[in-house]
């Protein structure tokens, strides 16, 4: 009872790739796994831990979800509504700073990953 958010069982789907989304998620407890389906094959992308967020692209673009996310063990997750958050960011742009910092960190990580793949690749 002494909790915020919603509890998901191990393996339970939180976000489905291809669906439209109007919120992002903040992990309150536990871990989630981000996976992408490609040519019928499941590719694990990342693991997000307590305190981290996911699904944040839905806040800034109106595209469908780019990946699926499911609980890894028992996880408790809080949703943050797009409309609610954007109206608060309109009032206080500094509110977006943590999102920007985190997305910047992820771009840095992806750039390093891309560089590694290119250097490991053929030729």
């Amino acid at each position, binding site marked *: 009872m*002494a*909790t*915020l958010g919603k509890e998901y069982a191990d393996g339970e789907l939180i976000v489905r790739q291809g669906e439209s989304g109007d919120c992002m998620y903040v992990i309150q407890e536990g871990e989630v796994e981000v996976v992408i389906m490609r040519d019928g094959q499941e590719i694990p992308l990342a693991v997000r831990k307590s305190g981290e967020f996911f699904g944040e692209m839905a806040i800034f673009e109106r595209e469908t979800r780019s990946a699926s996310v499911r609980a890894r063990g028992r996880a408790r997750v809080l949703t943050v509504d797009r409309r609610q958050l954007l109206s608060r960011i309109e009032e206080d742009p500094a509110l977006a700073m*943590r*999102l920007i910092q985190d997305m910047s960190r992820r771009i840095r990580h992806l750039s390093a990953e891309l560089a590694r793949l290119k250097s490991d690749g053929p030729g």
Partner: protein
Amino acid sequence: MKKDRWNISSASSVPLESGARVAVVGGGPAGSFFGYLLLEYADRVGIDLSVTTFEPRNFAGIGPASCNMCGGIISESLVQVLASVGINLPSGVVQRGIDSYVLHMDVGSVRIETPLREMRIGAVHRASGPRDLKVARWASFDGFLENLAVVRGATVVRDKVTELHLDGDRPRIVAGGRPPQAFDLVAVASGINAATLKVTGVEFQAPKTTKTLIREYFLGEETINRHLGTSMHVFLLPVPGLEFGAIIPKGDYVSVCLLGNDLDKAAYDSFIGAEQVRACMPAGWDPQKNSCQCAPRINVLGAPQPYAQRVVFIGDSGSTRLYKDGIGAAYRTANAAARAAVFHGVGKEDFETYYRPACERIEKDNAIGRFMFGMTGYVHKSATLRRALLDMTRSEQRRAGERRRMSAVLWDLFTGSSSYRQILARTFHPAFWGRLGYNIVRSSVTARRA
């Protein structure tokens, strides 16, 4: 003196420079949010500040002496905003997640649930618990926030500030009976329930207030789970002076809160004796055996000018939301003041330009709130209207997928999740009035037949 990129000084702006000393008077939510956010923003722009919070109470204690006295509800919108900035409220502080509320009137009750059925409202105690607490199973919410500011770099001094002098070039405060100490910025977050802070050198007009009543009852977790569950119970009952009452389930206790105009013991007894209230509580419950009680004042009209040169009044000391979401308003004013101080300056004109608008937004919204709560007077007077409201909400809750217009209005009005302006805007839709009109006619015909 602040200089722009052309190295031209602005005569009226007073920038906060590295090495500046900042005093925060009061370590409740507004003071702790301010200390935390000020240090966070200062770090972003590379300013080193020394922040000292003066708070005589130890929130790890129990009862009114350690408590900031309020219903202890963290609104849906604040929970989401805090999560977005990386402040996640731990389960050791949130005593119960609330996912629904039940509206009780003399004509019946209706449960209103969030579409996601997710716990997005937190019920907390401001101290470690009521005065008869034996074992502290949950930590104080105010203590959690105070610790956030400390981890960010603030220092807490357990002294009470009794005087604030604004007649020199720097504000000076008197704390713990020691000689006055000068600071580059003083943020006053002592609220409106602490003994009056003596302010000299500036004409500060305090906010207007009204009295509320809060009582805590020990029921035990299992009993609360069985009788109240994860719902907040809201009552619209014909008690003189009462806008509304609420029973908020916590861990082992429930908080009974009455909001209205200068409520007294007779109003409380009338409320607590109502059959709708008794029906929510277990058999044999004795309302006189409360664990803890207080009659805190709440701010109903903000301070006309909540700032001066190098001084800013935040939270209840400045402006807060009418009846609802006081902790959310503490975050808003603390954040606006911290942004103004770090990114613009701490002069009177800096606060006038960059802080005042945040307070004005709250006060303008409160004016709409006063109008909306005024409308509940009509609901109190008309049984037909009460039945129509109940029928419309029940019908919405039964039908999945339907736009729940009345449910959304009531949810936001009683949980404080949206601004009063947004709630009023929801009622402008023709479908809202169409369905309400239909239910009024239906209720009126049913009453005549009966």
